[in-house]
């Protein structure tokens, strides 16, 4: 009895609350306010204002990912080269901010970048002109990097940690110096972690709406903000749905590419 019917709540729940919503959104994306079918919503994608926002979303997400990779990779690498007790301590230190509420971490920067914030306080202490750092794209990128850095570091650190020390020793035995060991052995083997880190950074970054909202203040809107506005402010659910589908499409494409590099059977968490 249990064998046959135990899975029913799961199946029903998933169909009603996962599949059905997607179908509804798809329906909205291909219809207009009067109920007729149309791809006009998708055509809006090419409207220069929207295209602009899409471009900005992509460039912010790409820049965020690049900076996270640039600063994160060396950290992941170095964390594997310290004493084991230090290493464990650093891992806890790295994970702690991830457990802090995302909004609090973002809000923290309001206090730093704001007109009356820490940076300006320091600047005016030195009699330097105060800056308007808030509500700029740069600020958004800084805060995004801050939020996503641990997500980039952790997978790379884990993969590098798993590299069999024997392989490194074998390379050294065959005459490779430190630089060669890195470029020929460690870096290539760390790539699955890099791919993982990129997908855990780029995908949330491109669909992010909290950071551009709080830090960008409406001046640096990304796709997420646009979608929010359609649904909550402008009641143009059809456009919002179409934009959502475009976002999902972007995600699917990225996932497809990252899947080329991984070969797990699906059914595990990392």
């Amino acid at each position, binding site marked *: 009895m249990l064998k046959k019917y135990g899975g029913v709540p799961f199946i029903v729940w998933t169909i009603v609350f996962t599949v059905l919503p997607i179908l509804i959104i798809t329906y909205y994306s291909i219809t207009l306010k009067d109920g007729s079918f149309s791809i006009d919503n998708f055509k809006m994608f090419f409207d220069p204002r929207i295209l602009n926002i899409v471009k900005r979303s992509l460039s912010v997400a790409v820049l965020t990912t690049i900076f996270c990779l640039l600063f994160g990779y060396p950290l992941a690498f170095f964390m594997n080269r310290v004493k084991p007790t230090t290493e464990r301590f650093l891992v806890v230190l790295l994970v702690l901010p991830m457990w802090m509420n995302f909004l609090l971490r973002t809000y923290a920067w309001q206090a730093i970048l704001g007109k009356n914030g*820490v940076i300006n306080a320091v600047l005016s202490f030195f009699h330097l002109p105060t800056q308007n750092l808030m509500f700029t794209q740069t600020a958004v990128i800084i805060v995004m990097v801050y939020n996503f850095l641990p997500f980039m570091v952790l997978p790379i650190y884990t993969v590098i940690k798993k590299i069999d020390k024997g392989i490194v020793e074998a390379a050294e035995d065959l005459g490779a110096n430190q630089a060669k060991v890195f470029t020929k052995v460690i870096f290539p083997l760390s790539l699955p972690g890099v791919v993982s880190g990129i997908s855990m950074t780029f995908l949330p970054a491109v669909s992010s709406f909290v950071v551009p909202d709080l830090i960008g203040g409406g001046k640096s809107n990304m796709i997420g903000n646009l979608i929010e506005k359609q*649904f909550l402010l402008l009641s143009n659910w059809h456009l919002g749905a179409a934009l959502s589908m475009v976002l999902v499409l972007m995600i699917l494409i990225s996932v497809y590419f990252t899947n080329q590099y991984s070969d797990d059977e699906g059914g595990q968490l990392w």
Partner: protein
Amino acid sequence: MVKKLPKNLYIFLIFLFLYLPIIFLIVFSFNEGKYSGNWTGFSFHWYKELFEDRMIMSALANTLSIAILASIISTIIGLFGAYSIFRMKSRPKQMLLTINNIPLLNPDIVTGVSLMALFVFLHMRLGFLTMLIAHISFCIPYVVLSILPKLRQMPKDIVDAALDLGATPMQAFFKVVLPEVMPGVITGALIAFTLSIDDFVISFFTTGNGVNNLSIAIFSMARRGISPKINALSTLMFIIVMGLLLIINLRREKEK
């Protein structure tokens, strides 16, 4: 050694970057004045105001109750779901696994608006119940993915052995399968709990009627500008999280 210095310096600088904002948050929670640029004296009054703020306290209550309910319900649904996926033939299995993974791949905002659209379609009022349903929905996949590997790791034929020895399928599940996968069940429940506590985007779209969770409360306050009550809240949360992580790590050390 010369090599040590750049490495240690780099590590220090990056962690400084990661922690400075948090340190400022904590330090200025004790600031008498409102703005971080201006230290006007030591005070606990923001903490007092935090606990007196009804909106925040009710948001906290909502957050905790939803997290507890969502993690329990999603764990139960996910447990039986994982077990029936486990016993399926490969074609329906693959399909169900793919559907299960959809909420994991979907960006938060798409999950949020699509659930909102669903609730409106079903003529449901947005509020506590819809937020709870939304939380359960995004937790279930994580529960399933925590439990499936443990099911796969079970010794081969163990369920058939239980049946062979006289156990009905239900008895086999509770006496043999459940004890085996319990670590996965607990992990899944904990992950669900953590995700639920921390969620913002999906909650934002699926709630209404002034029912807030903590993240939404912080968001509304932050949108209006600086409020050191948030600093006080952050400090308290930081201490709790640090405490939890310390306990977890100390237990791990003890096991070794």
